[in-house]
């Protein structure tokens, strides 16, 4: 489908040298102060950190962990591990890890952290690497082979716990090259990153800044709105929840939310007024939200990717279809299995297996060389734009073999303002039923029944909800019924309302 039409450059191996020549700055906050450091100056500390890592007896291929908030040390550490040929194990700064167990599980030779309470016997304070002397002038950076790992990536597994993989060097080169081909970052651009650097995609922006000579504005989450307003970046690397928050902030700040000019002014004020585009990914975003930002002078581009494939599709200027996840990047090919599951082939694959995983987990995802089964369901339109419609694990197969994508049915039901929340059910059952949380707790069965009959008229016959149960208590994250991104946690909901659901098949 989409063949490699752009040469992939060897970016990782030239990173250390490029630091010496790169225009642009690292802008961040340190010890309560704003700092802006040109990349060649960052390189001096990277050389110190290389010396420090060498003094610890680390050699190319060793696994080194970092657990720290976004900031200067993260950047120095990361670029130093690349220069030394190490494999980073990036850890969530807010998580409490069983240090000894983690060290063994991931063969971690060394663990740097800024977490004050971390066990000092196994971990080292991050700041001490900056006290070392720089390496000598005859020192040269490590050269990775294309299939060498450069960093761990951790992915949340819903059934068997988190899974880890080691990203191959060639996949980093490919992602950098192809994203640059779409967005042409360069001098004058400032990309703000506030999500944790332990998320691999954030570090791609660091490498992009070095290689393509733009500014990186790296901030902890607590400073994101301050940094947007005061630094006026050109690109915001975000996920849907920050865009939902900005929309709410803008609409509550203005006197009249219908006053388009006032809303636009407030959106621009929050974003700093200099946005070239907004990046969104990682989770589905509503089309309305995309249109909101597009209408307010901040073009927003949705994409699709996952840890196992990196970024696979993306909308971009001139090739934007809001509601879709965009077209395949060069080197990515999209296909579907018999259930509509999205399969992605990567010319420069991220990994070929998880790190020390159960064979069945590897087999379910890494289905053949370079091909990953994503677990998502979707389709391509005639022009090659990808649409994601749900998760394969949520697919309902009725007893008549008809397949129902519950998200699509629920979306139709939720178009009715009378329905606050809903979940459809019916795997291996003769017809579809639903749990309905009415917007008005006093709503009658008759009234909701009428709403559902109206919604059914828009649905294909096997997608129609034939019976329903009213649920007076909203599904909440606190009750364990929603994820942190407000998605239904279907299994716990089914368990909680099992009797109500089964009763709908007995009437």
């Amino acid at each position, binding site marked *: 489908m989409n063949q490699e039409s752009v040469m992939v450059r060897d970016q990782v191996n030239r990173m250390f040298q490029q630091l010496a020549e790169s225009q642009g700055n690292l802008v961040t906050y340190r010890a309560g102060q704003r700092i802006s450091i040109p990349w060649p100056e960052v390189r001096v500390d990277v050389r110190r950190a290389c010396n420090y890592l060498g003094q610890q007896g680390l050699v190319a291929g060793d696994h080194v962990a970092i657990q720290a908030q976004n900031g200067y040390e993260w950047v120095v550490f990361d670029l130093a591990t690349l220069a030394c040929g190490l494999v980073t194990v990036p850890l969530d700064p807010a998580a409490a890890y069983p240090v000894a167990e983690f060290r063994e599980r991931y063969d971690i030779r060394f663990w740097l952290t800024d977490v004050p309470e971390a066990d000092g016997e196994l971990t080292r304070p991050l700041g001490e690497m900056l006290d070392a002397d720089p390496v000598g002038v005859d020192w040269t950076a490590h050269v990775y082979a294309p299939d060498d790992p450069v960093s761990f990536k951790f992915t949340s597994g819903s059934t068997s716990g988190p899974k880890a993989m080691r990203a191959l060097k060639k996949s980093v080169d490919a992602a950098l090259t192809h994203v640059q081909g779409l967005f042409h970052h360069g001098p004058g651009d400032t990309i703000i990153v506030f999500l944790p650097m332990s998320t691999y995609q954030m570090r791609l922006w660091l490498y992009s800044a070095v290689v393509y000579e733009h500014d990186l504005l790296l901030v902890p*989450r607590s400073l994101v709105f*301050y940094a947007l307003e005061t630094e006026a970046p050109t690109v915001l690397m975000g996920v849907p929840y920050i865009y939902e928050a900005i929309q709410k902030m803008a609409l509550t700040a203005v006197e009249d939310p219908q006053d388009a000019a006032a809303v636009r002014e407030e959106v621009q004020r929050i974003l700093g007024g200099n946005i070239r585009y907004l990046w969104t990914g990682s989770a589905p975003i509503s089309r309305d939200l995309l249109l909101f930002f597009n209408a307010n002078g901040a073009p927003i581009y949705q994409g699709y990717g996952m840890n196992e494939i990196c970024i696979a599709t993306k909308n971009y200027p001139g090739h934007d279809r809001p509601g879709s996840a965009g077209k395949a990047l060069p080197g990515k090919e999209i296909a579907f299995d018999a259930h509509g599951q999205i399969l992605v082939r990567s010319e420069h694959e991220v990994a070929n297996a998880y790190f020390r995983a159960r064979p069945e987990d590897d087999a379910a995802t890494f289905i053949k060389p370079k091909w990953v089964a994503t677990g998502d369901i979707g389709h391509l339109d005639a022009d090659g734009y990808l649409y994601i419609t749900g998760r394969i694990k949520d697919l309902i197969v009725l007893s008549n073999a008809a397949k129902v994508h519950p998200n699509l049915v629920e979306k139709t039901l939720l178009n009715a303002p009378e329905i606050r929340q809903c979940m459809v059910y019916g795997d291996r059952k003769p017809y579809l039923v639903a749990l309905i949380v009415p917007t008005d707790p006093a709503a009658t069965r008759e009234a909701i029944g009428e709403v559902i009959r109206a919604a059914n008229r828009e649905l294909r016959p096997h997608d129609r909800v034939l019976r329903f149960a009213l649920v007076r208590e909203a599904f909440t994250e606190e009750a364990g019924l929603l994820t942190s991104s407000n998605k239904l946690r279907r299994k716990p909901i089914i368990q909680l309302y099992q009797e109500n659901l089964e009763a709908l098949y007995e009437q």
Partner: protein
Amino acid sequence: MSNDPQSVPSVAQVVHQHLEKVSKKPFGAEDHLREDLGLDSIRLVSVVTRLTGALKVSILSFSDRDLIGLNTVGDVVRLFEAKIQTQSS
């Protein structure tokens, strides 16, 4: 507002005023930001950002770890009182 020092609002009053703008219902000091006020963590960042301006506290003194510890309205008040105390000492 008059110049009478007695009319200067307390930290708790300023925090309450700002939270009232984003909360859908009345709340007290022990109410939870997420469960009771419906404030997710990123919106809490936006409220804290505005409060730093209103209470003249340097936002650069805040870390993500400060915010992780905020569960109730009272926690926000106590955090700002502590920051003001540190700043003035």
